[in-house]
């Protein structure tokens, strides 16, 4: 019985992950936990005592408001970084993709393996955060299972276009810039820490245009069972489109770069 090629390519990533998973889990599990406790409890006390939180946070405590957003932000950060150095390095430093290309695998299948792995990596991270959320009665719900799917999708929506970019690069100079000027601002302004209605009017449309906000909305509404049909369809369509278009572009770059 034969296994689909992209999955066989994915296995290589997974085998490698097994040897480094402990440090990785630290990143995807412990860091959000720290944010949750630090911000959720500390800032939460301030916000909840202000008496305005009911109106602003739709009846959620600040801790409840913040927690599901971390599913999306963690996926974003893990996926974005997975789409930078590992993708560039596969071409430039370790030549992993070239050695795959010497086998029956085609560039599309190699790109498919990368995409599957990025989804896996996002999913592992999101499951880590969801486990933390399940520890607290305020955020424990069956909706977490759906939120895992939405969080993973958020990761994909970042991994795909960034992979398309990385696969065309010859050096890693742009990666810190992406982290500094895209990922970190989104983390802060993407609606995870406060409703984007709190942003200045001109910034609100920008926040809406970014994939993170859609992911945060999906995760939060899933956890508290507040998903409404059309907004949900809109968010999903946006994220899925980004992921699909991004990976199609990435696959093109893989073809160009592996067919000399």
């Amino acid at each position, binding site marked *: 019985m*034969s*296994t689909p*090629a992209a999955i*066989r*390519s994915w*296995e*290589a990533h997974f*085998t*490698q992950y097994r*040897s*480094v998973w402990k440090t990785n889990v630290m990143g995807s599990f412990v860091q959000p936990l720290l944010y949750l406790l630090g911000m959720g409890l500390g800032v939460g006390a301030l916000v909840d005592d202000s008496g305005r939180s009911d109106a602003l946070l739709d009846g959620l405590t600040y801790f409840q408001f913040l927690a599901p957003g971390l599913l999306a932000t963690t996926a974003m950060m893990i996926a974005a970084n997975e789409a930078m150095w590992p993708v560039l390095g596969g071409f430039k430093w*370790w*030549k*992993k993709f*070239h*050695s*795959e*290309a*010497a*086998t*029956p*695998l*085609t560039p599309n299948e190699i790109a498919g393996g990368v995409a599957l792995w990025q989804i896996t990596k996002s999913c592992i991270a999101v499951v880590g955060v969801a486990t933390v959320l399940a520890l607290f009665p305020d955020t424990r719900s069956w909706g977490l299972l759906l939120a895992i799917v939405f969080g993973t999708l958020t990761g994909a929506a970042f991994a795909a276009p960034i992979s398309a970019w990385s696969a065309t690069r010859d050096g890693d100079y742009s990666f810190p810039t992406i982290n500094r000027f895209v990922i970190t601002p989104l983390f802060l302004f993407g609606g995870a820490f406060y409703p984007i209605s709190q942003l200045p009017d001109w910034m609100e449309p920008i926040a809406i245009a970014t994939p993170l906000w859609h992911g945060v909305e999906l995760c939060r509404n899933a956890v508290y069972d507040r998903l409404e049909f059309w907004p949900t369809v809109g968010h999903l369509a946006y994220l899925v489109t980004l992921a699909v278009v991004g990976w199609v572009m990435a696959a093109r770059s893989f073809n160009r770069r*592996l*067919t*000399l």
Partner: protein
Amino acid sequence: MNPPASTPLIEARQLVKRFGDFTAVGGINIEVRPGESFGFLGPNGAGKSSTMRMIGCVSPPTSGDLNIFGLDATRHGKQIRGRMGVVPQLDQLDEQLTVQDNLIVYGRYFDIPRAECKRRAQELLEFVQLTDRADSKIEPLSGGMKRRVSIARSLINEPDLLLLDEPTTGLDPQARHVLWDRLYRLKQQGVTLVLTTHYMDEAEQLCDRLVVMDGGRIVAEGSPNELIREHSPREVLELRYPAGTNEEHAFEVEGIGHRQEALPDRILIYADDGEVALKEVHARGSIPESVLVRRSSLEDVFLKLTGRSLVD
């Protein structure tokens, strides 16, 4: 299944590879027969690696025909790659994985069941004498060991054809000899070897037949012995004179042997019999500081055909 022995395993007709305006391979014809060990010799930039990439089915030819295992390389790349092993110029091993996992992961690319990959990995590590390093990471291994892992990895799909791009570049003499020995055994098992090298001793050791490439073209073809016979008299007399006086001494020995070459540090006289040539040198009253008579080597042929100027 291998095609009948009379059919070439690799057949290239007027094979061309261009990158923009640059012609890397300028219309070459090659035939490699099953079980043969075939070499591409040439200085850097001669077009060896471009040719190897086309044979490896990762680089489509610009024009010309290329058939491997009787299949068209442009249309059946996937199938052809499945029956081929590739040892790249620089090791492309996964440094974070163990030696054994490198082999298993690679075998999975060929859709070989995991258990079978494991079995073959053990066998292959024994073959390249690395059984005791199976669970070691790649990073601490020596250059020669990494090379052997690369070779083991390239054999995981039990290929009919093995492509080796400069297999021993950068290795110390011991490591090279171990590697040659292993490659020789593969050849004995019937694996067709195609390799590039710029080491003449390697070509003489490993190749039944070879082509010398220069500037994207084939400038000579034959077995190492044929090439030496065809392009160089049997022996070489090397004369060393005090530094800086080569030119005047070249004048003294002019006309001896078939051909002469004045290098900065010595004069080479190509002759059928080196001793006879030396007698004549002495008879003319020329007294070199030191003298060496040796057999013509592939290196002499190579330098004659591709010139002595440095290619970077």
